[in-house]
Every structure is written in structure tokens, then in C-alpha cells.
């Protein structure tokens, strides 16, 4: 396995975790009630920890002398490889729940696979993350049920969120050259297997609570090449502003 390939692979995953952590942390002090405020930001804190571990490793493997902070604070928009789904905003609570629920399903498969690889650093990161993600899955799964079956309004809101976020799901099982290399080395499952896993779970969870899986066929593509929705630029402008305004400062 080429170190640079593994670095890029960790960076992609780390970027998705980082950007989701940003979205989750935006919910701080805005939760529907205090317990859920804590829960939602806690998901963010777990993701931030995963992002940090993955980006530290990505920087190390890359061998260019960059740190994880350099990767987070000094890369431009086109240098980020997170999924577009990860950067979608907290339009309302339902959007946040659906974004995290789908990403969490994806992450659970990714980390389960990585926990078994012959790379102590990565398998260590993944083994810890598997436990965290299992909790996320439980928590978010409960919200899918509550909102799906709760009231007419909640049902409508969560169905809207599912419909509007659906176009970003295709990226989660899209494959490029790097993915194929990682699959060959046993670091990732095939796009086909990921698609089957996601579709089976999403469809059974949604139909159980009378929600439906959208039929639309258009799916976005490009985040693996640094193509994003317009939201990422604003996230980075906010996230990176101090580092960029005071490049000589240490914090």
C-alpha cells in the first residue's frame, strides 16, 4: 500500500468527520431541549475526536511536515474531500437527524472494516470509533422513529429532509481509483456492498415508521475531487478565519 494513498484515504474520512462535527457544534445552545442539546453536541465531539485522529495520521503518512491543524486550517475549499452530505446545514432538527443518521450508517460499515486491518494506528482509531458510532446509530435511529411516527408535522418535516438530502447519498457508494486500491488491500468494502447495506437499512428503518425512500435518480458526485456544495466555503471561512488572519500566531 502506498503511504500517500492511505494518507488520502484517511484525509477523506477525517474531512467528513470534521465537517459533520462543525455542523453538530453549530447546534450548541439551540437544541429542542437541554438533554438533546447535550446529546447532539456530544455526537459532534465524538466526530471531532475521530477527525483529529484520522487527520493526524493522514499528515504523518503524507510526510510533508504538515500537522493535523495545518490540514484543517490551511487547506482551501478544493483541497477538502468530505462528502457533500456531511456539509449540509441544520435547516431544522429533522435535517440534522437525517444527515447524521445516513452518515452514521455509512461510518459504521467503514469503521467495522478498518477495525480489522493490519495497521495498528488505523485499527485502533476504528475500534474506538465503532463503539461511539454504535451509540450514534441508536440515538439517531430513535429520532427517525419518533419523528416519523410522532405527529403529522414531524412526519412531514423528516420526510422533507429525507427527500432533500437524498441526492447526496450516491457519493457514499461511489468508487474511484483510490477506493478500488483500498478495497483490494481489505481497507474498504465495495461500493456495491456499501450501497446494498445502506439501501437495505434505510429502507427497512423508514418503511417501519411509514416514511418513504425517495425515487429520484439524480445523485451528486465530485467530493472525492474536492467538488462541494456552496456551503463548504462558508464553513471554512468561519473555521479558518483566526489562523488565516494571524498566520504567525500560536494559540
Amino acid at each position, binding site marked *: 500500500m502506498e503511504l500517500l494513498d492511505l494518507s488520502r484515504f484517511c484525509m477523506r474520512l477525517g474531512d467528513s468527520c470534521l465537517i459533520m462535527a*462543525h455542523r453538530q*457544534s*453549530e447546534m*450548541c*445552545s*439551540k*437544541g*429542542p*431541549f*437541554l*438533554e*438533546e*442539546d*447535550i446529546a447532539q*453536541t*456530544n455526537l*459532534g*465531539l465524538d466526530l*471531532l*475526536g475521530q*477527525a*483529529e485522529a484520522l*487527520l493526524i495520521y493522514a499528515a504523518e503518512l503524507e510526510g510533508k511536515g504538515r500537522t*493535523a*491543524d495545518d490540514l*484543517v*486550517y490551511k487547506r482551501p475549499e478544493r483541497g477538502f474531500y468530505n462528502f457533500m452530505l456531511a456539509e449540509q446545514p441544520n435547516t*431544522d*432538527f429533522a435535517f440534522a437527524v437525517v444527515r447524521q443518521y445516513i452518515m452514521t450508517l455509512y461510518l459504521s460499515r467503514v469503521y467495522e472494516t478498518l477495525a480489522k486491518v493490519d495497521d495498528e494506528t488505523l485499527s485502533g482509531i476504528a475500534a474506538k470509533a465503532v463503539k461511539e458510532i454504535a451509540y450514534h446509530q441508536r440515538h439517531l435511529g430513535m429520532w427517525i*422513529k*419518533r*419523528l416519523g*411516527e*410522532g*405527529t403529522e*408535522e*414531524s412526519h412531514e*418535516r423528516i420526510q422533507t429532509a429525507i427527500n432533500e438530502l437524498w441526492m447526496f447519498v450516491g457519493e457514499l457508494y461511489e468508487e474511484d481509483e483510490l477506493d478500488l486500491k483500498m478495497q483490494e488491500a481489505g481497507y474498504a468494502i465495495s461500493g456495491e456492498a456499501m450501497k446494498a447495506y445502506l439501501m437495505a437499512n434505510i429502507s427497512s428503518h423508514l418503511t417501519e415508521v411509514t416514511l418513504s425512500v425517495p425515487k429520484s435518480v439524480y445523485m451528486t458526485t465530485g467530493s472525492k475531487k474536492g467538488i462541494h456544495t456552496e456551503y463548504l466555503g462558508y*464553513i471554512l471561512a*468561519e*473555521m479558518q*478565519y*483566526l*489562523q488565516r488572519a*494571524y498566520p*504567525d*500566531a*500560536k*494559540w
Partner: protein
Amino acid sequence: MVVEELEVLFQERIDANEKIEPRDYMPDAYREHLIRQMSQHAHSEVIGMQPEGNWITRAPSLRAKKILLAKVQDEAGHGLYIYSATETLGITRDELIEKLHQGKAKYASIFNYPALTWADMGAIGWLVDGAAITNQVSLQKTSYGPYSRSMVKICKEESFHQRQGYEVIAAMAKGTPEQKEMAQDALNRFWWPSLMMFGPHDSASPRTGNAMKWKIKRESNDVLRQRFIDKTVSQAALIGLTIPDSDLKWNEERGSYDFGEIDWDEFWSVVKGGGPCNLKRLNHHKKAHKDGAWVRKAAVAYAKKYSNK
């Protein structure tokens, strides 16, 4: 037993330093005082999430971001803990929030000042949490059991918060000239409001009498304020920052620092709603509560549906 006798027995228990528990007899005025003070404390923890939460997305390193996010979550946890302790007095969290929204319940005025720069994350942790700990350490000995126990737990986390804040501001004070300027500016803006956190002078604090008699409050505003100043002055000197008080001077005889007069007009103005962020903080809380109404409704409807099955 008639009320007078119960009250005498109650005061005897207080005088013997016994803790009062939720199901014990307590005079109505004691209960009301506690509800007012504890709910104000809980609201302060929750409203206090806003000025710091405002900086999580802009924190300048992964480490700083993780610490700040965890810290604000701690504050939320404290709020939850104290709300629960307050509910043991026979009032619900919904009622307490309603009172906050109606302006009938207060929260610490310090959160009505804006957090303008990253150095403010330092100043808030160092000074605001520092002042809060001084008060809360004293409250560990308060007479109401649930409140006292919540303070023991909270103090442990607050001392970590204060160190975190001091670390942020110390790094900036030793950093580039711009960082040092931000650090000094944050100290300038937060110093006096931090001193105001201890409340009016003892001579102007009408509720102190009963609170001390009932041992809800164990030490007076002025005593606590002096303790905070005495321990903080050297911390500022250590990192090369100047406390913005030209009257600040060591008094050998008292073994304490003398300090300048607090601007009590500003204090009362902010308490009564006239501060830079009063409206913003309350509106933010109201909006989050209103935006979350459909989520809470859905959760209740779902729970009902399955409890009937």
C-alpha cells in the same frame, strides 16, 4: 405541630449544620428563596452556553475546539443538574423556563456582555468561571442537600474550566503583539463585570440576612469578592497582563488588596435588562425553545403511542 414550632425546629437543624432534604419541613420563604437562587443559577449555566458556543466553530486549533465544545457541554450538564435539584422543591423545569422567558427569573448578568475575540474565551474561563468557583465552593456548604451536592460535583468541573481559560489567555499574552493586545483588551472588558458577579455590597444586599440565617448563603458578597481579587491579581501579573484598576494596591494591614469602586449604575442597569446582550441572549433562548416545540411534541406523542400498547 403548629407552624411556629416547626420553624423553630427547622432553625435548630440549620444551626446544627444539618442538611435539609426535599421531603423535610421547610418554611415557604426558605423554599421560595431557594427556587429563586437555584433557578437563577441553572439559567446562568444555560444562558452562559451562548457567548462561548459562539466561538466553537471559530476555535483556532483542533485541541482548542475539542476543549471548548466539551466545556460548553459541561455547562449544559450543570444547568440540567441544577434544574433537577430545583425540581425537588416542587416546581417543574417548564415553569422555570417560562419564568425566564417572562423576565421574572434572572441569570448572571455577566453573560449580557459580548464575547468579541478568542481572548474572551480565555477571560471567561479564567475570570468568570474563577468568580463562579469562588462562589460555588462556598455554596458546597449550603444548607439544602440537593443544592449542596450539586455544587460539589460542579466545582470539580469548574476548576478544569478555569485552568482552560487561563491557558488560552496565557498563550495569547505570550504570543504576537496582536494576541497580547487581544488578551489585555479581554481582561479590561471582563474584569469589572466579573467583580459585579458577586452582587451588591453587603450593605446594599437586602436578601442576605435571611439567606445567611438559613445558611443558604455561607459567606457574604464582599468577602467572596475580596477572596477572588486576592487570588487573581498575581495570576494576571504572572502572564504580564495589567488589571484595569488604578486603585488596586496591596494593603499590608488587611492582608488583602484594596480596589477601586465598582460602577454600580452599570451593575443595576444590566441587572434590569439594560446591557449589551440582554435582549439577544433571551431571544436566542426563546427562539431555540420555540423552534424545538415540534420536536418535543413529536417525542411526547411517540412515547404516548407506545406506552398505551
